[in-house]
């Protein structure tokens, strides 16, 4: 069984089960089928720069190289910021309880690109937390699945259908622009309102 994400809320530790909800779970998905002239299924491969070697799925590795082109172990390398200072690694969010204390506004939440959403469940009592979420409270916390350089932004919120979700996203660099900050450079019958929000048609 997967290790739960433990959130610390109001002095109580709440272990959460996370179930990822993807677009394909809601609307289905599209597969691209490629056939040759005889109607046989084809697959994608990589043709190497020698013009002869065909490399199938899993046949290529990414490697880390020194300036001279010698192989290096990535773990022996040092992550730095733009000032050249070492960046400390953050631990996995599953290593210790994550305090749930920061509340953000709708605008702050909307300033993030949301990459993944997880429906949450728990065998513990979620009553107090759900009462806060029902008021429209959005909690933010640093979230890192494996641990690494920079945590993502994790949000806990209640969806409009009443389901509690954890959303994982990245902040964006939105900024207010003024007049001087220039950037350089047919009607038909209206459809049904439902069509406008039909996510299944896309």
């Amino acid at each position: 069984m997967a290790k739960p994400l433990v959130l610390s809320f109001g002095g109580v530790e709440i272990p959460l089960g996370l179930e990822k909800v993807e677009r394909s779970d809601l609307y289905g998905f599209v597969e691209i089928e490629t056939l040759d002239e005889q109607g046989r299924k084809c697959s994608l491969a990589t043709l190497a720069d020698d013009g002869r070697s065909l490399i199938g799925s899993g046949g290529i590795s990414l490697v880390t190289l020194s300036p001279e082109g010698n192989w290096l172990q990535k773990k022996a390398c040092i992550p730095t910021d733009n000032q050249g200072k070492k960046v400390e690694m953050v631990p996995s969010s599953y290593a210790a309880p994550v305090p749930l204390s920061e509340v953000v506004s709708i605008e702050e939440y909307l300033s993030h690109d949301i990459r993944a959403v997880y429906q949450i469940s728990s065998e513990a009592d979620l009553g107090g937390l759900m009462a806060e979420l029902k008021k429209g409270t959005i909690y933010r916390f640093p979230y890192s699945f494996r641990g690494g350089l920079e945590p993502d932004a994790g949000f806990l919120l209640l969806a409009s259908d009443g389901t509690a979700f954890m959303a994982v996203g990245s902040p964006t660099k939105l900024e207010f622009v003024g007049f001087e900050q220039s950037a350089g450079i047919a009607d038909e019958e209206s459809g049904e309102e439902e069509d406008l929000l039909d996510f299944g048609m896309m």
Partner: protein
Amino acid sequence: MLREGIEQMGTINIANDKGRDAVVGSVSVLKPVKVRWLDEQGRQIQSGRVMKAHQAHELTALEAAAGGRDKIAQTLIDADPEIDMENFGAMLKESSRVYVNPEGKIVRKVRQFEVIRNPDGTERERRPRKIAQPNSDTETPLKWTGKLMKKKEVYNKFVFAKKRQIVHVNGLTYDFLYGMAKDLEKSESLMLLGAGAKGNQPLVLTRGGQQYRGFLEGRTQGEKYCLILHLSNMELKSAPKGAE
């Protein structure tokens, strides 16, 4: 300039609530990666791609050469045919993506179909592949649908996966976009944007790219504004039971 080193500046043709349209700037708001990796001597490292294996030395080829799967073991012991000493580990620079048939031969003429599947994986429809064309910067502007949605009611209804910031390109478009941002801010709402002549089509920003519903949000700060095009391709809701 809007900001130093503007990257991925595009244009977008957008109409306001009065049906007036203009071509304006559309800027990526992705935060750049701030981390540089150094070696033990403080020099910047680089990454590369190497060949791990190729099809001439994979199981299918070995099986064909040995005359059956049961005969492979002995050939592995005798001659290491699974390893290409000359090429495995070679750096890959200018490689290409190609289609291969079940025999592992390159195919130059293919037909493509879209197989549309239900959440449970069953086939719903099959049709020739149609590559979506971008529709955010065509002669037909993106339209305000008139469907305003209060922020407090919409933030938890959709998953806003991406966004673009809409910016002016001259004095006239500054007034145009500032007015739009001001109106939207006053309404505390997002405006649903649509593409196509009816304004009811999803937005496609790049050729063959993902289709999104567009939601426009406006914020102002004195004489400055921030007009955000939120893009969403799914609702925030639980999956139906049994969906895999």
